[in-house]
């Protein structure tokens, strides 16, 4: 008889990673509302696919679903996005230079200091493939291998994206200090 109280329920396996899912959705999407749409859609997909989930890394699995959902949503809304989805590697400089002022972000209040808000803007201004790699590494603390799995990207590409993301971030910070 299946144990109805076993720990392999959707609630026990997937729901603990709701924050991780939201974090990624929020960093991928431009505003809180579309992030929540993506989160909800992704959780529903996860619920649907859960019976076939046999893996050992539910967080990576869920993040993959979140990412797919977010990308699908951005494709649907192409043209509305402020930041272009690009595979080009050297777009970051331009994007950093066009940093939004950020006063219309409803989550600004969460970040107490201006510096932190500034860092948030810098990360938000990164091209999406650099941004997601940086967020998965620095905030989710995923391994290179896990990031490669979530983003369907070779590890070598993960490493170079991470490098570019960090370098752009460091450069933007230096520019800030100089200004």
């Amino acid at each position, binding site marked *: 008889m299946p144990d109805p109280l076993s720990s392999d329920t959707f609630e026990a396996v997937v729901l603990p990673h709701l924050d991780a899912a939201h974090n990624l959705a929020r960093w991928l999407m431009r505003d809180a509302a579309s992030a929540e749409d993506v989160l909800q859609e992704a959780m*529903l997909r996860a619920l649907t696919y859960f019976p076939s989930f046999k893996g050992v890394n539910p967080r990576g699995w869920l993040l993959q679903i979140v990412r797919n959902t977010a990308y699908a949503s951005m494709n649907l809304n192409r043209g509305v996005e402020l930041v272009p989805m690009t595979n080009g590697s050297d777009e970051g400089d331009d994007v950093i230079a066009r940093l939004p002022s950020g006063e219309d972000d409803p989550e600004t209040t969460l970040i107490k200091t201006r510096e932190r808000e500034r860092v948030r803007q810098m990360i938000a201004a990164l091209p999406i493939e650099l941004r997601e790699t940086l967020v998965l590494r620095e905030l989710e603390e995923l391994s290179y291998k896990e990031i490669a799995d979530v983003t369907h990207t070779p590890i070598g590409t993960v490493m170079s994206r991470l490098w570019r993301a960090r370098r752009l971030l460091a450069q933007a910070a230096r520019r800030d200090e100089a200004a």
Partner: protein
Amino acid sequence: MTAMPDCNKVLLVQAELDGELGAAEAASLASHRAECPICQAAAAELMQARALICDDLYQRTPDEARQRVMAALDAARPVQQRRPVAAAAPRSSQSWRGWWASGWSNGASFGLGAACAALLAFFLIVPAMPPGLTEEIVAGHVRALQPGHLQDVASEDRHTVKPWFDGKLDFAPPVKDLAAARFPLTGGRLDYLGGRPVAALVYQRDKHVIDLFVWPAAGAAPPQTAERQGYNIVHWSQDGMNIWAVSDVEMAQLKEFAADWRNTP
């Protein structure tokens, strides 16, 4: 700017910083790095970038969004598998407990799941433990252990924690200070169990968190124990309150905690 590093070892410098290199690789990299100004500059830049990142940047789920997601998940579940109380509950998480999850994925197994639940209820949780509540309590505890969810009011002072609940609940939860018994109070939060708001008091034993859920109930009942998913539970009723303690501390310690709590005026 060139996006790619000028020394082909720069990505290894980064990998080392990220803890992705084995000891042997790290050692051979160290000797290269000592002589490579490009790698030294890269390391400095990476450190600089990393120093900008702080935990505050983590975008946790806002409470309202969480509730809406939970409601959507609940609604997505086949109707016949919903618990009857689900409709009445403001927060849907309460219906995420127990047995349905083993049955929902396959309509045919629903009956079996229900039968199992009935059997379990009969053998394990009769008489005082309502089926599902134990699971719900553990789930509530596990949810609370996620970063940022443990407490809405953080204080070791019961005179701060107790008034915090004023106006948030239709009862005044007893808040006791057990610091002398090595179970210091660290705070409290609102939680939702069995379709009603409850007080959750957070205590600590060494590095373990003990959640104490409190809500009104008639009568008194002696302590009973349970164990689910590696978490220990002691619950009882006293002074018109249902009280459930859940933690990953050993059962003996949790019983000790319960006894101290019961005996503290």
